[in-house]
């Protein structure tokens, strides 16, 4: 298949290994990955903070960029539950706010081909064993938007369980939000801090070496707290685990969500 990668702006700049891992994984599975460098952002931050009119040019640009490819690619993949949720549910709302019916229609066509990584692997590529190797214990944090908006359900866990050498351990209170919430983490920083403090404590309690999730943003939040506390567990994105093999194993670097190997 020919798959177009939307890295998300956050992964592009702050967690590039998540996007690289997505490319490496999909190519290893025999697919062709295309990347249009004109891409920027899905507009989620603007939308969720209520700046619909400011989100509109971003959404328009997103639709312009990916609409061009619709006939040439089989799917568009985003390694993020919340950004995929924004494309699927909120681009429509932004178009409606701008009373732009044409944009609404075009956004719908792009959204129909857009998948979050675990959805793409399990539903479109029909695979759960991607041939990965990751000899570590991990605990899975289901991010809110992947769990409650996209409803990815057990897909990520199925993918993880098929990884060779991995041990998946239970995360206490796993379904509670980590406190990121985009601009919430800044506008309500004290409440957000109370939430991520508990999430980090539960990650430590799980005893896992890594906390894995499908959203780099939530991982930056949880990982940032773990790093600040000097706690041992490290954050890792699902794509990074699935890209790791015996030949090219994941070795964490000093950088959050980065890799040394």
């Amino acid at each position, binding site marked *: 298949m020919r798959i177009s990668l939307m890295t998300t702006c956050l992964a592009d700049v702050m967690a590039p290994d998540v996007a*690289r891992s997505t490319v490496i994984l999909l190519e290893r599975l025999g697919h062709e990955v295309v990347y249009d460098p004109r891409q*920027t952002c899905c507009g989620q931050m603007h939308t*969720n903070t209520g*700046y619909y009119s400011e*989100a509109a040019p971003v959404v328009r640009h997103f639709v312009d960029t990916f609409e061009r490819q619709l006939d040439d690619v089989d799917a568009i993949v985003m390694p993020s539950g919340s950004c995929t949720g924004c494309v699927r549910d909120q681009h429509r709302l932004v178009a409606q706010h701008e009373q732009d019916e044409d944009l609404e229609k075009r956004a719908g066509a792009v959204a129909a081909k857009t998948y979050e990584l675990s959805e793409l692997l399990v539903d479109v590529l029909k695979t759960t064993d991607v041939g990965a190797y990751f000899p570590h214990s991990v605990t899975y944090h289901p991010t809110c938007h992947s769990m409650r908006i996209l409803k990815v359900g057990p897909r990520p866990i199925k993918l993880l369980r098929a990884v060779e050498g991995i041990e998946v351990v239970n995360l206490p209170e796993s379904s509670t939000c980590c406190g990121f919430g985009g601009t919430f983490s800044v506008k309500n920083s004290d409440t957000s*801090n*109370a939430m991520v403090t508990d999430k980090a404590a539960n990650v430590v309690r799980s005893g896992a070496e890594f906390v894995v999730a499908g959203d780099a943003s939530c991982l930056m939040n949880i990982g940032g707290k773990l790093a*600040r506390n000097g706690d041992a567990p490290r954050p890792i994105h699902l794509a990074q685990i699935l890209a790791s093999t015996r030949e090219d194993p994941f070795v964490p670097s000093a950088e959050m969500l980065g890799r040394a190997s």
Partner: protein
Amino acid sequence: MSTVHLGMPGVRPQHASPGSSHLRGDRSFPAKARTELANPVLRQNLQHATSTIQAKRASVVREVRDWQKLRDAGSALKWQVTDHLPEMLVQLEESVQAAGGTVHWARDAEEAGEIVTRLVLERGQQEVLKVKSMATQEIGLNETLAHAGVHAIESDLAELIVQLAGDTPSHILVPAIHRNRAEIREIFLRTMPDLDPSITDDPAELAGAARRFLREKFLDMSGSVAISGGNFAVADTGTVAVVESEGNGRMCLTLPRTLITVLGIEKIVPSFQDLEVFLQLLPRSSTGERMNPYTTLFTGVAEGDGPQEFHLVLLDNGRSAVLADPEGRSALHCIRCSACLNVCPVYERTGGHAYGSTYPGPIGAILSPQMTGVTGPDDPNASLPYASSLCGACYDVCPVKIDIPSILVHLRAKEVDQRREASGQFHGTWDVAMRGASKLMSSPRAYDAAVRASSALGAVKRTGNIGKLPSALPLIPGWTDHRDLPVPRQSFRSWWKDRERHGGAPAPRPDGDGPEDSPASGEDA
């Protein structure tokens, strides 16, 4: 769900009256939350109570195989009510009158307070008994009555605790959720004159003390007045339903001579049979019980049985204003079960007082600002729609499927739009930052250059993560006060470009320390 166009109202709907209504705090949510978060006892009390009740709810909901269908039915009935509210209210009035009751219409808290006070004084009473009610809390009825020299006694155990402590409720269902047993014992010892000081903080002993205190009040109720709220009012029969656990409500509703019920206009259900849906949804969602111990249904007056006078006060106080917004109006569907509070990670940490309103938690965050209207960026209620990480847990548990996260975002957008349209008001830190980011993220060239610049920062800072630092960027300190931030290194786009230069060959892994390639090294996209 498509919304019905309700037409133009003859009278412009007005917001809740600012004077008497308890719908707005004195400080913004973040400021109040900061105070509450600093109280470790509060946090412990809340965490214990909400997690217990949440687990109970989950287990009794799991038993009901058609739970999702019940929710659909509850939601559909409530949409039917908001779509036809004017007609149904008139129908309710006729039914209540036909059953021998009297109906009063109150536009706001003041009007409702006046009506109730007049009814009490006309009957020569100085003391009234109260059944726990959100509506009377919302309109500050106890204070209004006190001004007129009438003492209102709360008969609900938790409400009584709050009243005796001179406190305000912090939860819809468990008003004293922020108190633990030891604190309650102290309050009782301070306020109940005849209490034996050897009382322990055993819940049974505390409940016994409250029961003795209240029984005396119940015993001399002949000729008396009681005031209640109501959970549901049936349009076609005029029946009012009060759902409770303790039985004190049943006493208040049956023993006095005169019963006054204050009811928000959204509490209507179309027909008696519809109660079957809500009486299944409500107890499981609220207390986590299969059935609540006491459900009292009363229809007008019956000679020789129960109160001989029944007054129904229908309260608007901003509800018509909520109804006027097609995207926000489903906030009126709330049946006050409090499931959304118990599951909310924000409420669980800040408690109810941080919301500054009778209605706390996720439902309060969408209901209070719509009822009061928002007067400007400094209105404390302007901060409520932002008091959520949009995690969506509330929507999942709501028995009438109110899409709280979507309404939160809608209200944010409404507030931003209002400011954008009001000339001279769109210059806040966020406005400027969001406008700048919008320009940047809709221009691939500018964006590309910005990504390169941020990676250059990574080349300067050699350690892995940014620790605590004062920053020139307005948005970062809130983050780095509490957690680290990764240092931007080689961006993905630059790695991809390198890789294409190498003929698409599997690119080398970046070593993590390499600076960004120079902007001159490739064509701009």
